[in-house]
C-alpha cells in the first residue's frame, strides 16, 4: 500500500509486444507515485484534521467576534459557569491525551496488555469529561438557560416586554392554581426560606400588575426571580446581595418565571454550539476507542491507534482554547 514516492523500475519485458505508446522501453523508467510520504490512513486523518481546524476556527472565530461586538456580555458567574469545574475538565482532557500517547507507545513496543490498559483509561477519562459536561449543562438548564425559547427563560433587559412576559406567566391557569395553593399553605408547613420567598413573591406579583410600575421595579422583579450572582474569585457567592443568593425560580422550581441576563441569549447560543460540537467530537472519539479495545493492541494496530490519537489530541486542542475563552474571559 505504501510504495515509494518515486521508484525506479527496470522494464525488462518492454519488447515483448503490446506496447504501442512508444516510450519507456529502454533503461530505467521513473514511476511517479503522487502523494505525501506518509501512510494513507495518516494522510487522510491529517487532511480531515485540517478541515476540522477550519471548522472550529469558524466556530471559535464567530464566538470571539460576536462576544467583542456585543454591547454587553454576561460574566461567567452570571450564567452559572463554574471556573473550577472547567479547569477540572481541562485537566481530565490533558490526562486523556497523555494516556492515548502512552497506549501508542506501548502498542509500538509490542506490549498489547499495557496498551489496552492505557486505552481503557483514555476511554474512562473521556467519559468522565462528558459526565462533567452533562452536569454543567444541567446547571444551565435548571436556570432556564437554553439556546432558544420556549424552554429558554432569558430576557435581555428588564423592560416592558419582560414585565409582560412575567405577567403572562403568572396568569397561566396552572400557575394561578399553584400560587393559590402556595398562599393557602400554613407557614408552619413551609421552611423559613420558603416563607420569606413567598412574601417576596406576593410583593412581586403586585409590582408587575401595578399600573404605576417604574423601570426600577422591573429590575427588582428580575433580581428576585434570578439574581445575577455577585461572585468574586475565591469570595463568597452570596455576599452583599440583599441576603438572597437564590432566586424565586430556585426556591419554587415550578414557577419558571422569565429571568433577565443581559446578553444571555447570545451567550447561550454560542456556548451550547461550541461545547455541543466539542462534546460530539468527544463522543466520536469514545466510540473509536471502544472499537479499538476489541483489537489486540500490538504493533500491527499502531497506525490505527496513532490516527485515533491524532484525532483525540485535536479534540484536546480545541478544549485548550475553549476553556479560557468560555470560562475565564
Amino acid at each position, binding site marked *: 500500500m505504501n510504495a515509494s514516492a518515486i521508484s525506479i523500475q527496470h522494464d525488462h519485458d518492454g519488447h515483448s509486444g503490446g506496447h504501442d505508446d512508444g516510450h519507456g522501453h529502454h533503461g530505467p523508467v521513473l514511476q511517479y507515485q503522487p502523494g505525501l*510520504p506518509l*501512510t494513507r490512513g495518516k494522510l487522510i486523518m491529517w487532511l480531515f484534521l485540517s478541515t476540522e481546524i477550519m471548522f472550529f476556527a469558524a466556530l471559535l472565530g464567530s464566538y470571539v467576534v460576536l462576544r467583542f*461586538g456585543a454591547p*454587553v456580555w454576561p460574566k461567567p458567574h452570571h450564567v452559572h459557569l463554574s471556573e473550577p469545574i472547567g479547569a477540572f475538565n481541562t485537566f481530565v482532557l490533558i490526562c486523556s491525551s497523555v494516556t492515548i500517547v502512552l497506549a501508542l507507545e506501548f502498542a509500538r513496543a509490542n506490549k498489547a496488555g499495557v496498551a489496552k490498559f492505557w486505552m481503557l483509561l483514555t476511554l474512562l477519562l473521556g467519559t468522565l469529561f462528558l459526565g462533567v459536561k452533562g452536569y454543567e449543562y444541567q446547571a444551565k438548564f435548571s436556570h432556564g438557560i437554553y439556546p432558544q425559547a420556549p424552554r429558554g427563560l432569558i430576557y435581555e433587559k428588564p423592560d416592558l416586554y419582560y414585565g409582560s412576559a412575567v405577567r403572562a406567566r403568572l396568569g397561566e391557569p396552572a400557575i394561578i392554581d399553584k400560587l393559590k395553593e402556595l398562599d393557602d399553605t400554613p407557614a408552619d408547613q413551609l421552611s423559613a426560606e420558603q416563607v420569606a420567598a413567598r412574601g*417576596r413573591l406576593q410583593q412581586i406579583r403586585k409590582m408587575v400588575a401595578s399600573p404605576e410600575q417604574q423601570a426600577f421595579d422591573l429590575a*427588582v422583579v428580575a433580581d428576585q426571580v434570578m439574581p445575577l450572582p455577585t461572585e468574586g474569585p475565591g469570595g463568597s457567592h452570596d455576599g452583599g446581595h440583599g441576603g438572597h443568593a437564590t432566586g424565586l425560580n430556585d426556591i419554587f422550581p415550578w414557577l419558571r418565571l422569565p429571568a433577565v441576563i443581559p446578553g444571555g441569549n447570545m451567550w447561550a447560543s454560542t456556548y451550547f454550539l461550541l461545547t455541543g460540537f466539542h462534546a460530539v467530537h468527544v463522543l466520536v472519539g469514545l466510540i473509536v476507542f471502544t472499537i479499538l479495545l476489541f483489537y489486540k493492541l500490538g504493533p500491527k494496530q499502531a497506525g490505527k491507534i496513532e490516527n485515533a490519537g491524532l484525532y483525540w489530541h485535536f479534540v484536546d486542542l480545541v478544549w485548550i*482554547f475553549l476553556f479560557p475563552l468560555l470560562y475565564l474571559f
Partner: protein
Amino acid sequence: MSDHDTHSAHAHGPITRVGDIPSHDDHDDAGHGSGHDNHAGHGGIGKYLLVFVALCGLTTMSFLTYSPYWPWRNEPHVGWAFMMAVSCTKAMLVVLFFMHVFWEANWKYVLTIPAAMMAIFLALMLVPDIGLRNRMVSQERALHMARGSDVRLLEQAGEAKVLAEPAH
C-alpha cells in the same frame, strides 16, 4: 556504516526521506520488537510526562487569572492576553509532541499552514458584518438591546432593599 545509516533514518522519525516509508508491516519485524521501547526514535515516556507536567502547569497559570492573587483584576485585557499566550503555548506543546509533528517530515507544513491561514481569514472575514454589527443600529434595535447599564440597574436592584421582609 550502511547499518548505522538505516538505523539513524528510523531514529529521526517514522518518515525521514522519500522512499523510506514504513508500512504497518515494518513494525512487525523481529528486530523492532525487542529492546526498542522508544521505537521510531522520538517521544519516550519521560518526554511525554514532561510535556504533561508542563501542560498542567500552564493550565494552573491560566486559572491564576481567576484567583484572588491575580494582580491585574481591573485590567481584563492583561488577563486575556496572558491566557491566549498560555493557550497557544499549550496548543504548541500538544501539536508538536503529542501529535508528533515535531518529528514529522516537511509534509506537515503543506497540511497545517494553509488550514491555519484559512482559519485566520475565516475569523477575520466575520469582523465587518458580525463584529461591527452594533456600530450602526436602527433606533428600534438600540431600544431593545441589552447594555451595560442594564447590568448596573440589576445590580442596584439587588442591593436596594425595596421589598419588605415578611414578619416571621
